[in-house]
C-alpha cells in the first residue's frame, strides 16, 4: 500500500526563511507514518540498528558515519531510508557546517537507490535540497525526474515547493498547475493554488495571486486561532504588501507573528506597519493587544504516562505556565 505523503512543510517555511526546517519536517513526516509499522517488526532491521546507534551518540561526525553506513548497506525501501538520509544531511549541514558532506550523502543514496522503488523518493528529496541551496543543477534534476514513471500530483507539488524555495517561479507555477490537473483531494488543490498564487505574486501578477489565495483558503483547513497549517497567510500578506495594501497585509500577518513568531512575517509586518502608521513604534503594543484578544484556551484531555498513571491536562497546568510539546523519538 502506498501511503499518502504528508504535507512536509510547516507554516514557517517560505522562500523568505529557508533552512533546516524543511528537512526536519520531512524527517518528521516519514517517522510519523512509520509509527505502527516499526513496532511489529524485529529490532534487527538496519533502520532500527541505525536508530539505536544514533540514540547512543551525540557526536555529529559519528552520527553521519552511522547514517552513511546505513545508506550504503542492505537498507529497506522507502521512507525510512529517506528519513535517515535527510537526518544525516541535516546533521552534516547544521552541526558539521559541511554542505558538501550533505550533498555526498545524497549522491551516495542516489547511487544506492538506482533502479529500486525508493529511487523516486530519494530524487525528490535531493531536489528539495538543491532548491534550498538555489543550486544551478535544479532544472536538470527536475528533467531527470520527469524521464521516469509518470509523476503523481504530490510529486508535482513537492517539485513546485522546492522550486519556490529556489525562487524559480515559472517552474513552481508549472508544477503546481500539473498537480492541480491531477488532483484527487481538496488539500492537493489547496496547496497547488497556494503555490500558484505565490508564484503569480512574484511574477508580477498580484491580482491573480489574490484570487488564487481565496480559492486555496476554501480548500485548506484552519486550525488553532484560525491559523493555516500552510504558509497561506504569509504569502497572502506579503502579496498585499507588494500591492501597497498595508492594512490588509497587517491583518494577514499579525496572527502569524503573534502566535507563531514567524520571522519572515515579522519583517513584512514591520514594513507594512511603518508605511501605514509612519513608524513601527506602536507595533509591540499592537502585537500584545492582538494576543490578549485572540489567544484561544488550550483544549483539555486526559492521558496516561508510561507508568500507566492517568493525568488530566487541566489539573497539571492549573495556575501554572506550561509548555506542551508534541514529539516523536528521534
Amino acid at each position, binding site marked *: 500500500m502506498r501511503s499518502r505523503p504528508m504535507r512536509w512543510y510547516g507554516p514557517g517555511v517560505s522562500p523568505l526563511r529557508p533552512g533546516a526546517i524543511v528537512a526536519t519536517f520531512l524527517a518528521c513526516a516519514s517517522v510519523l507514518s512509520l509509527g505502527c509499522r516499526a513496532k511489529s517488526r524485529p529490532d534487527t532491521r538496519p533502520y532500527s540498528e541505525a536508530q539505536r546507534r544514533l540514540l547512543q551518540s551525540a557526536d555529529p561526525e559519528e552520527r553521519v558515519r552511522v547514517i552513511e553506513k546505513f545508506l550504503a548497506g542492505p537498507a529497506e525501501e522507502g521512507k525510512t531510508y529517506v528519513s535517515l538520509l535527510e537526518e544525516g544531511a541535516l546533521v552534516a549541514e547544521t552541526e558539521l557546517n559541511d554542505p558538501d558532506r550533505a550533498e555526498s550523502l545524497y549522491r551516495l543514496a542516489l547511487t544506492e537507490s538506482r533502479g529500486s522503488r525508493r529511487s523516486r523518493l530519494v530524487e525528490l528529496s535531493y531536489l528539495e535540497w538543491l532548491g534550498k541551496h538555489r543550486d544551478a543543477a535544479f532544472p536538470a534534476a527536475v528533467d531527470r525526474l520527469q524521464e521516469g514513471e509518470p509523476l503523481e500530483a504530490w510529486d508535482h507539488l513537492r517539485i513546485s515547493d522546492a522550486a519556490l524555495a529556489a525562487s524559480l517561479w515559472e517552474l513552481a507555477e508549472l508544477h503546481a498547475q500539473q498537480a492541480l490537473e491531477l488532483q484527487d483531494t481538496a488539500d492537493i488543490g489547496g496547496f497547488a493554488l497556494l503555490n500558484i498564487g505565490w508564484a503569480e505574486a512574484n511574477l508580477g501578477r498580484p491580482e491573480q495571486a489574490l484570487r488564487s489565495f481565496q480559492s486555496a483558503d476554501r480548500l485548506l483547513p484552519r486550525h488553532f486561532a484560525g491559523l493555516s497549517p500552510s504558509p497561506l497567510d504569509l504569502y497572502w500578506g506579503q502579496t498585499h504588501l507588494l500591492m501597497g495594501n498595508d492594512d490588509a497585509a497587517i491583518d494577514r500577518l499579525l496572527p502569524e507573528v503573534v502566535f507563531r513568531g514567524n520571522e519572515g512575517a515579522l519583517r513584512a509586518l514591520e514594513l507594512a506597519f511603518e508605511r501605514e502608521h509612519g513608524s513601527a513604534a506602536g507595533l509591540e503594543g499592537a502585537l500584545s493587544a492582538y494576543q490578549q484578544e485572540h489567544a484561544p484556551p*488550550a483544549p483539555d484531555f486526559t492521558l496516561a504516562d508510561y507508568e500507566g498513571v492517568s493525568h488530566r491536562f487541566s489539573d497539571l497546568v492549573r495556575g501554572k505556565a506550561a509548555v506542551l510539546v508534541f514529539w516523536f523519538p528521534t
Partner: protein
Amino acid sequence: MPRLEPLWRKYGREGLVVIALETTGDDDLARRFIAEKGLSFVLLRQEPTRHNVSQSLYGVTFCPQTFLIDRNGRILHYHPSYSPGDDARIEKQVLELLLNQS
C-alpha cells in the same frame, strides 16, 4: 524535545510545567529515548489513531510542535516546527509567562 529538560529544571520551581505527548505510539522506542536522555518532566502517551488528542484537539499532523500556555490556560505562543534559535525564543516566552501572575 530533550532541550526542554534543562528548561524544566531551571524553571520548574518557579511554576513551569512541561508536558510532552509522543505522537507515533511507538512506546518501545519512546521509552528507550526517554531513558537515554534522562527526561524527567511529564511524559504522556496516546494511541496512534486519527482521533487522538494531537490530531483531533490540537490539529497536529507533523512534529515537533510546541504550544506555550499561560497561567490562565490560554495558548499564547505556537512553534509549529523546531528551527535553530527556538530554544532562546521559547525560554524568553516562558519567562514572560512566568512573570505574568494574573
